[in-house]
């Protein structure tokens, strides 16, 4: 256990567990999540929102035989914990038995990852964030564009205690700076960096990257929709991993026959390898899941071949395997998710990727993506903040944004280039480590006015 926060959280979890067991339940699990987070937001090259919060939630799951109840509360005093235990137990008494209830998970070698915590992030002040924001704004000013974005920093402490002996706690830190620069002639650029250590965030570099792209996308021209080869920058690749993780790389999705994953089946080209690894210091590490189970590395795609999915304790029991440590807080009808995806690097530079396009598009990022056909992973969304026409391996100029309707599985299958450089970014499923990639084809199905 790496800090006082974790010790306090585990102590609270144990008190909640004691309160539950006094109620005569068969099994109980207390999950404590304590957050200390802050975010500085800027728009029109000034700070306009600036917030901080501290919060704690005790999530109590109890079982009476195979009847399971869950309750959660922000109250941490003895009376609050007693009421919490009463609520969870009352629910367990009235629900039907879960025939395949596998019981709570037992102890595993779970521990926080040392590389997942940085004191500098835990101690980050509003002044530090404001200073970084001024650097981004300064870069925008220098380029004659306007800066928008946010800079967040904070800690998440998780502790789990259960009646089978699980006792684990730890604190993670994460900082994220993202910015959109917008120019007077319709130009727009994006840049982002996420890190465990706030000191690793290079605000000036992020500001310059976005500002430069905003200048480069001024006076974009319309391009007809259609099929084009593309280079997707890392910010766009995050969406591929997030959607595939959400739709398919979960044991529950496979068990419910709504996943595209079949172990041993090829869905990507040889260049595509994706793992989930909570221990990887290049990402945003996470040593154990919200059931207190140690996270294992899971090979999701190995050179294009489906190798595995992630499990929590309940889905693991159904397949008679061990949990991979990907459980979410109960109750969890969505199943386990890969929260630490890493895509393997390739051997090409960014220029190599672009140079491989005879006539195609360079895409910075996607906006508002959503599944149209979940099982085929057909997704629709828009490009945003930097879309360029490439001809003869050279960037010709900016184009207006396009709508796409594209199977992300087909995208994996036609991946023909992967960058050797990777970025650590924050997706909606957690920290991800991704390279830029080049695809033989991408289906754009609509246009817009900017």
């Amino acid at each position: 256990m790496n800090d006082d926060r974790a010790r306090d959280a585990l102590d609270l979890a144990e008190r909640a567990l004691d309160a539950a067991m006094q109620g005569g339940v068969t099994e109980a699990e207390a999950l404590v999540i304590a957050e200390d987070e802050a975010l500085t937001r800027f728009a029109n090259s000034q700070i306009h929102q600036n917030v901080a919060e501290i919060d704690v939630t005790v999530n109590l799951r109890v079982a009476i035989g195979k009847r399971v109840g869950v309750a959660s509360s922000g109250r941490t005093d003895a009376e609050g914990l007693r009421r919490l235990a009463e609520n969870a137990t009352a629910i367990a008494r009235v629900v039907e038995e879960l025939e395949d209830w596998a019981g709570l998970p037992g102890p595993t070698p779970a521990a926080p990852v040392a590389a997942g915590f940085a004191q500098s992030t835990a101690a980050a002040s509003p002044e530090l964030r404001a200073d970084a924001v001024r650097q981004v704004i300064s870069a925008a000013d220098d380029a004659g564009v306007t800066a928008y974005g946010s800079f967040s920093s904070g800690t998440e402490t998780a502790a789990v205690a259960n009646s089978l002996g699980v006792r684990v706690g730890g604190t993670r830190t994460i900082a994220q700076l993202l910015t959109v620069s917008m120019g007077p002639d319709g130009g727009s650029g994006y840049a982002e960096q996420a890190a465990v250590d706030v000191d690793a965030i290079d605000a000036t570099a992020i500001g310059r990257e976005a500002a430069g792209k905003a200048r480069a996308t001024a006076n974009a021209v319309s391009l007809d929709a259609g099929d084009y080869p593309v280079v997707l920058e890392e910010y766009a690749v995050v969406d591929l991993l997030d959607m595939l993780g959400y739709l398919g790389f979960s044991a529950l999705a496979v068990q419910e026959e709504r996943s595209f994953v079949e172990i041993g089946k090829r869905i990507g080209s040889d260049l595509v390898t994706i793992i989930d690894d909570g221990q990887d210091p290049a990402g945003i590490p996470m040593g154990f899941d919200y059931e207190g189970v140690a996270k294992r590395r899971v090979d999701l795609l190995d050179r294009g071949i489906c190798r595995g999915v992630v499990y929590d304790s309940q889905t693991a029991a159904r397949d008679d395997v061990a949990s991979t440590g990907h459980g979410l807080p109960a109750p969890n009808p969505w199943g386990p998710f890969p929260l630490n995806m890493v895509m393997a690097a390739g051997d090409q530079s960014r220029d190599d990727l672009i140079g491989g396009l005879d006539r195609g598009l360079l895409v910075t990022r996607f906006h508002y993506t959503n599944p149209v056909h979940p099982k085929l992973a057909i997704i629709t969304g828009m490009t945003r903040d930097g879309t360029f026409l490439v001809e003869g391996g050279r960037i010709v100029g900016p184009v207006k944004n396009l709508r796409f309707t594209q199977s992300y599985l087909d995208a994996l299958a036609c991946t023909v280039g992967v960058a050797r450089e990777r970025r650590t970014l924050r997706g909606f499923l957690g920290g991800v480590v991704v390279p830029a990639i080049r695809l033989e084809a991408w289906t754009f199905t609509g246009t817009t006015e900017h």
Partner: protein
Amino acid sequence: MRDLTERALDTAASLGARYADVRIVRRHEESIAIKTGRVEGVASNETEGFGIRVLVDGAWGFASSHILTGTEADRVAGEAVRIARASATALREPAVLDDRPPAYGRYETPVDEDPFDVPLETKIADLLAADQAASAVKGIAFTESMYAAQREWKTFAATDGSFTEQTITHVGSAVEANAVEGDEHQRRSYPDSGGGWQAAGYEYIRSLDLAARAEPLADEAVELLTAPQCPSGRFTIILDPSQLYLQVHESCGHPTELDRVFGTEASYAGTSFLTTDKLGSGFRYGSELVTIVADATASGGMGTFGWDDEGVAAQAVPLVQDGIFAGYLSSRETAPRIGRSSSGAMRADGWNRIPLIRMTNINLLPRPGMSLDDIVADTDDGLYLASNRSWSIDDRRLNFQFATEVAYEIKGGKKGRLFKNPTYTGITYEFWRSCDAVGDERSYVMLGTPNCGKGEPSQTGHVGHAVPGARFRDVQVGVGKW
């Protein structure tokens, strides 16, 4: 509560805040999730805390805590002021608030049958009956059914003397049937995939009569597995309220948020094509049949309240009047910039979030004359699209694409065979200008979404949409492949 609010405000003022407000919020939630006839999860959640928002030298700061003590109120107020002073180091235009009379009073959602008093066994049994009716249909792979209730007790106080107390209750429920075969996964849901939601009590859940709707719904999901692919091309389409409400949400609700127009959501959700030069210029947003209001007083809407989260009284304001763009959702800070008063649309997702401009109830008003059935009967050749399945819209809210769970072919004024995997796409104002029929009161129904995302850190809003059905001409359906 008054002791804590006064202490927080006094401390903030003594440290230099020219304006401050504080909200103490307690939220109780209860949920039931059923999957394929078995109760997967029953959960209860309680959270309580307070947040202090301060304005110091024209710069904003906000801090919040779950610890409800006077000492913590002092600490959090001090933290908010410190944050505001940090904001001031990167400030170009100091924030100015419009005048509004101090707010006083109480508001409570009208509830006939308190959802938290209905025995849990009853609620589980009601939902289980609906889920089992769907899962019993041959060919159904899995079903998912949900029930949820949320009650929020909220105390608001500000340095201008405002003090309001509100108790808001929302309930929602849905049943969903899924059929899977090979690569095909078809779904039908009622009343909506996200659930039918209202500001009401358990009487609303009973009125949905989920059990009676479940079996035909599941039959349709199975039928869709072998239904032909929805054709691509230009079509006349009729949108059922179960899809039209989200069309209103995405293409009218969000672009009329004045903070988006001013760029303060640019880095996340985006901006808006409805720039301020279009207001008062006669900009035609839709056909003359299209009138859309933001009505925080509408019965049953999840955007109904007594006062917003900066103490502005609930009101109804036109956004689109007879097709002409007419107004914005706004706040005390943004409204003066266009010479108007706040529309009372500042809403926060709990004690630990700042209020943002959010939708209240964004309603497409019915037009007397034609029922939804009349509109179908009046359509020679077209498609009737129901129940949202997917949505996406660009960062200025222009190019949208929606998928629905089902399309029914319309020939000679009658609904016929089913098509699977329908999508339609367009440009917002072109689409609304193509509206040539809006249903009357007979199909006008209050729906809403409990998961409207906005802001950083993220906030989830409960918003309402009352809509009838409507018809649109010459709309692009499908993408020509797959």
